[in-house]
Structures are given as C-alpha cells and as structure tokens.
C-alpha cells in the first residue's frame, strides 16, 4: 500500500482509502455489476433481440441524440448565462443567480408537467409556434427542451467559477498589445475556461441521458418516435421482463461509459497543454 501512499497533513490514509473503496463498491460498482450479471444470464440471441429491436434502436437514437443536442445547447447558452452573471452587475442579479439552481431542486416530474403546459399546442408558447408548424410538446424537440432545462444548472455552475478566475489583467494585457475584443475572447478567455466548459458539458450530458421524470410528460412516448430508453426500461419492468430491462440498461451503461471516458480523456489532454509538468 505504501507504493501509492502520498504524504498528507491529515493522517488516516488507510481508513479513508478503505472507506472510499467500500463506498464506491457498495453504491456504484455492485449494483452495476448486478445489472450486467442479470443481462449475462440471457442467451446471446435473446440479448441481441432485445437490444437490437427497432423500437430499442429508436430509443437510443432519441436518448443519446437529444442529450447530446441539449448538452450542446447548454454549452453555448450556459456559458452566456455564466458570463452575464460573472461579468455584469445589474438589478436582480442575485435572484437570477438563485433561479439557476431551481431545476436541481424541483422534482423533475413537476418541470416536465410545467413544460408540457407551456409548450402544448394551446400553451403559452406553444400557441405561437403552432402557426409556423413547429410542434414542441410530444415531439423530439420537446424532449430536447426538457433535457436542456435539466442540464442547464450543471453547465452554469461549472463555468461560473472558471470565469471568475479569468484575470481581468489578462484581458487588459491583450488589449494593450493591440488585440480586439473577439480576438481576446477566442485566444485568451475561451482557452482558459474550456476545461470547465467540457466538464459542464459532460455533467449536463450524463444527467440528460439518465433523465426520466420530466421527459415522459412532454415526449408523448410514441414508440419509435418519442420514446426514450429509460422509459422503455420502465415498460419492460412493468411487464415483469427484468432481463430485458437489464439488457437495455447494460447497453446504456456501455454507451454512457464510452462517451464519458472519451470526454474525460479529451479534457486531460487539454489540461496537460495548459498546466505543464512540474515547476
């Protein structure tokens, strides 16, 4: 154990490390292992049938596609919100800052119902979109809207502290060197907050993939069209098809893990460019 032991001010490495392993195992790894084991008890053929069922494929596409789209929307607009909150002083700033956390606290079903009400064909916003042929509720757009709402605080809350750390001096220095505003933004600010933006993107994406409550109300749940994978899993559970549910869960697990790993690697690579080895 002494091989990877780091000198630290606080004693008790053994205790804390043991606790970390236990906790991770009990809460994260064991259930996941059970999930995989459960799906392993199926035949290959049976497994593939469930997993490659056209209805399942459609749900993957919606789940991961809409999550990716929502996280991307959050990447842009979450950044703008964080920027506004950090850089400007305006009346009501504190209130808006507090509102950001609302999607965290609200039961997701509530936000789902609220969004449906607003975006339904006769809803506050929906009635104005209707004449243009844009339907939000009960389409994939609605799913994206719900997932954007759910992921937004993750983005804002990770980018905010990073933006606060961008020293004004850097921008001033660039300006005296003759750089225009856009140049300063592209060459100085963006590279500095990019790692935080990637983290925010990852969190928002991960949250969106796992989201259930808010989506089922606004999506309409049409098989092949507006049915997300978590819903499909619930449907299987309600049919007492535990193994089918486990198979779908395993696929989600695999895809999520690969995507999160990819983003994390990208981030590590980016960070290594900024913070050099040693001093």
């Amino acid at each position, binding site marked *: 154990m002494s091989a990877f032991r780091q000198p630290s001010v606080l004693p008790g490495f053994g205790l804390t490390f043991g606790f970390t392993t236990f906790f991770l195992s009990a809460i994260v790894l064991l259930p996941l292992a059970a999930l995989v084991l459960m799906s392993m008890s199926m035949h290959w053929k049976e497994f593939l049938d469930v997993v490659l069922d056209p209805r399942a494929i459609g749900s993957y596409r919606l789940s991961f596609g809409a999550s990716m789209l929502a996280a991307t929307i959050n990447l842009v607009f979450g950044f703008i919100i964080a920027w506004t909150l950090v850089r400007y002083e305006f009346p009501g700033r504190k209130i808006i800052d507090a509102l950001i956390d609302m999607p965290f606290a609200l039961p997701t079903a509530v936000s789902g119902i609220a969004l449906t009400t607003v975006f339904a064909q006769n809803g506050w916003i929906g009635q104005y979109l209707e004449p243009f042929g844009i339907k939000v509720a009960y389409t994939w757009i609605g799913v994206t809207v719900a997932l954007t709402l759910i992921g937004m605080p993750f983005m804002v809350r990770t980018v905010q502290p990073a933006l606060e750390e961008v020293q004004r001096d850097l921008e001033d220095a660039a300006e*005296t060197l003759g750089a225009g505003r856009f140049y300063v933004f592209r060459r100085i600010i963006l590279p*500095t907050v990019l790692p935080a933006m990637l983290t925010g993107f990852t969190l928002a994406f991960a949250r969106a993939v796992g989201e259930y409550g808010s989506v089922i109300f606004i999506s309409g749940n049409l098989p092949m069209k507006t049915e997300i994978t978590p819903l499909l899993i619930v449907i299987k559970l309600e049919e007492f098809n535990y193994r089918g549910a486990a198979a779908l869960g395993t696929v989600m697990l695999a895809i999520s893990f690969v995507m999160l790993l990819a983003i994390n690697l990208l981030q590590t690579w980016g960070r290594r460019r900024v913070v050099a080895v*040693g001093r």
Partner: protein
Amino acid sequence: MSITLDQVTKRYQGVPVVNDASVDIGDGEFFVLLGPSGSGKSTLLRAVAGLTGVDHGRIALHGRDVTHISARDRGVGLVFQNYALFRHMTVADNIEFGLRVRRMRRAERLARRKEMLRLVALEGMDERLPAQLSGGQQQRVAVARALAHKPEVLLLDEPFGALDAKIREELRRTIRQVQRELGITTVLVTHDQEEAFALADRIGVMNLGRLLEIGRPDELYTRPTTRFVATFLGAANLLLARQNRQGVHFSTPGDGSGRSQEVVAVIRPEEIELAPARDQLRSTYLAEGRVDEIVFTGALERMRVRLNDGSTQAVLAHSNGGDTAFLEVTRAQHEQRAFQVTTGQNVAIGVRRVHVLPTPLSSFTACALTAPEVDRLSREPLLVELATRMKTRIATHVEPCLGIDDGPCAATPDAFAGAAVIGAQRDTAKSVRWLLEHGAEEVLVLPQNASSPQRVLIYWDDEASRAATLAVSASLLRHLSAEAVYLDILPDSTPATQRPHGMRALLDARSEAQAVHGLEMRTELRFGDVAGELVRQLTESPDQLLILGVSDAAGLEQRFRALLGTEPRWPLLVVYRAPEPDA
C-alpha cells in the same frame, strides 16, 4: 514631450481618485509615480494606457491626443504586478502575441522574439510555458512581451511587487538597462521609495489622487515642499519651529523671541548630532534628550531619542508615525566611534541642517470663550481630520473676549501661531475681525459636525491677499481629495467690454496656482453681489468649504454680511494679509 497629462481627473462614484494630475514626461525619461496604496497612482497609469477612461482632462502621447483612443490603438506596453502572462501559451507565443495581432510575417516575428529574449536575458526559453518559469523570469517575459510591438511608451505597474528582494534588485537592473538601451519613455508605479530612488530620472509623488510634487530624487529628498513628501520619501522628523529674520529656532512660543512666524521644519535623522553636553555640539543646539532605543543595522545605527520636557511639543510627526515625543536619529560609523551612547543615556541634540517647508498652515489653535468650548471645538471631526492629515497639532487657547464681550483681552501677538479656529456662531464676523486684528493671519470657522469637503471654493477679495490665499489653498488641498474651484465674481453692472478682463484675471490666477504652488483648480466666473453669490454657491451642493482672502479686517463685517452675519453653515477659512503700507 512623450507623455503629457493635463488636468487628468478620474472619479469613482463621485469621489475623485485621480485629481487634476498634470505632468510632462520627456523623451526617453524614466518617470516614477510614487505613492502609498490608494493614492491613485495605478489608476493614473491605467488612464495613460487607455484601460481606464478619464472624467476630465487630456492625455497626449508624443503630441498625439489619445484621451478618447482605446488601449489597443495607443501603442503602449504595459507590465502588471502579477505578470498577466497567458498561461496556456509558450514564452514564444506570449512574446509574439502583439506581433500576431498586427499580422507580422513569421520570419520577422521570429527575429523580433529572439531580440526581445536576448534583451531580457532569457535566450533559449522560447518553448517553455509560464508555469515552468520562476517569478523573476515570468516578469522578464512580461517585459519582453510589452516591448515586442515597439510601443512608444513603456508602463510598469508595480512590476517587482511579487518578487523577493534579491530577484527584485536583479530585475530592476535589467529594466533600467533595457530602458537605456531602447531609450524608451517609461513610467513605473511603485510604493517603494528605495525603488523610486534607484530607477527614476524624476519622481512624481502622489497622495489622495493628487500629484503633489515632481522632481529629481535628490531635489525631492533635500527640499520637499510638502509634509507628505518630506515624511514619505525617506525618514524625517517634522517639528514646529519659529522663523524670524535671524533664522529658525525651536523654542516654545511666548518666550520673548520677538515677532516671528510659526513654520514646519524637516530634520532628516542623519542631520542630527548627538553630544555628551550642549557645549560639545558642533551644530545648532536643539534640545536635551535621553536615548530610548538603539537598533544596530550594520553601517548605520538607528535610535529614538526622547526629548526632555518642554521641547516635546515641538515634534509633530516622523515617518514612522505614532508617538511624537521622540526624534528619529541615524548615525554613521565614525559618529558612533566619536561618541558611544547606550540606552538611557542623557545627550545633547544638535541639528546640522534644517529644511523649512514653505507651507503657510503650520498648526491649528482652537479658540473659544471658555475651556469646555475650546475642548469641544478641538474635537470637531473636520478639524481633527485636517490636523491628522496635515500631521500637525491642535493647540487650545481660551480667550475671554474674542471681540464679543468687552472683557479683558489677553491676546499676545504670538498667541495665534498657525491658523486660529473658532466655532460658527452669531457674531462670527466680529470674532474673525478681532482675531485678525490681534495677530492671526488665518481663521478657520467651523460649524458643528461639518463633514469633510468634496469641493473647495476659493475667492479673494483683493490683490493684497491673492498670493497668501493661493498658498493656503494649495497647502490645504494637498491633504484633501476635494476638487478646487476658483471663483471670480464681477458686479452685475460690469460693462460687456470689461468682461474679457475678468476672464483674463481668472486664467492668470489659474496659471499662477499651477506654476507657483502646483495646485490645479477649476475656474468659474460669476456676476452679482460677492457675498450673495458666495452664499448661493455654497448652498447649491453639500460638503463645500470656502477659502476667503481678505486684506481689510475692519470692512469684513460690512462686506460679507450675507456670509458672516448669520451663523455660517459651511466651514470657512479666512486668509488675511494686511496691504503693503506703501501701496
């Protein structure tokens, strides 16, 4: 001129942080802005760089007015205290940043970068990241980056602040070398007077947003004109002294030394001589004292000498502030050998060289009819604030008549050393007149709980009092962050042909204030009855103070009835100089 600042003023939420700063900086000059934190020096530097807009005034670089030109088009190089290097870029990219922005070709860029790295002695460091460099090296990169695009002016904002002493000195030398080699006009901001002395061709000392004094380091050290500069640049003892035709002496008032004027004297610690007894001094005798504390610092010996009773009240302040019963003394090796002292020893104190500050407001004397009133007056917040800022003392004086009663009047000609202070009351005019006729030359009238002025109005009634009013105004305003406004008031009946003369008088006054006293002031021309117009101006906005120059004490009551007849609601400083007898 490389850099011209003309009456530059910057306010934050109405409070001026840079107040009427004017200076001309020559080509290739190394100019140091020196001041304590919060004195507005960094703001002024940022204004020159174009990172901060100004509310008033003009900034020109090489004759080109850049007041409204953005930082990116000003062509200055700026170095920050925390380096402000782009951490995600290599040293090479950092230095080439300004060149890339200007779309310089690759080969030229490379050549320029190599030249810059040689200049700051960092050859071969091109591909390092800032995090791989030490603090001193990072600041060198910052200097190279600031110079790469060949700016006309180099600005340095506390560039050594974050470095330790040894590296600081090394970098200081590099910067001076680079500056000489390129011949680039440089402005450096610092709070460290040693740094200022080591680098500057000229130093501008700032305090409370004002550029107090500008001069060569040795000039400012030996002949400062303000208390602030005297105590901020090097160590100094400030003493109240009396000056007459024979010279300066330090005896207390009322000892029969004849008609003399109270002045503020600066004595540098190294100009003080110690001897076992008075007759063994080779310099002018000052007082007897006892050595209280000795600190050995290698070449020099620093001590604090406590003055014996009777002479303690002369000391106003020294650079270290605090207790004023001491004199700060430093002695070189040969002095230590000639006369060894130990703690607790009694010594005679002599002074080799005294510098008298040309400031007319030496101290304040609170005057009232009864002791409790005097006591209350001497604790007025505005008076205490002024005295603290001016590093001077408030003496008290109970005067049983003050021109109001016909009781016995005990005033001696010397009783009102410095400015006399009275509370605002119904008979203000009478009291002021009485004080002026009994030897006071400045009278400060204070209403109760007056607040610190944001605006100081200056008006003089006649030519005889002009010079003195300007001097007093300059002396007072150095210690306030208020703006100064000179009012000239012409009678309503002034014919149109006479009005240009009024304008000229106004501008003359402004130039004189600037040239003689370094006081920047606005000017306003008004028409109407003098006292009425002054009252109107004072009523217009809160927190104002009026400095009023007069030379006719007897006519005061009559002429300024509107101002002094009722109980004044504004702090008021009357400056009085009797007209020349032959005029």
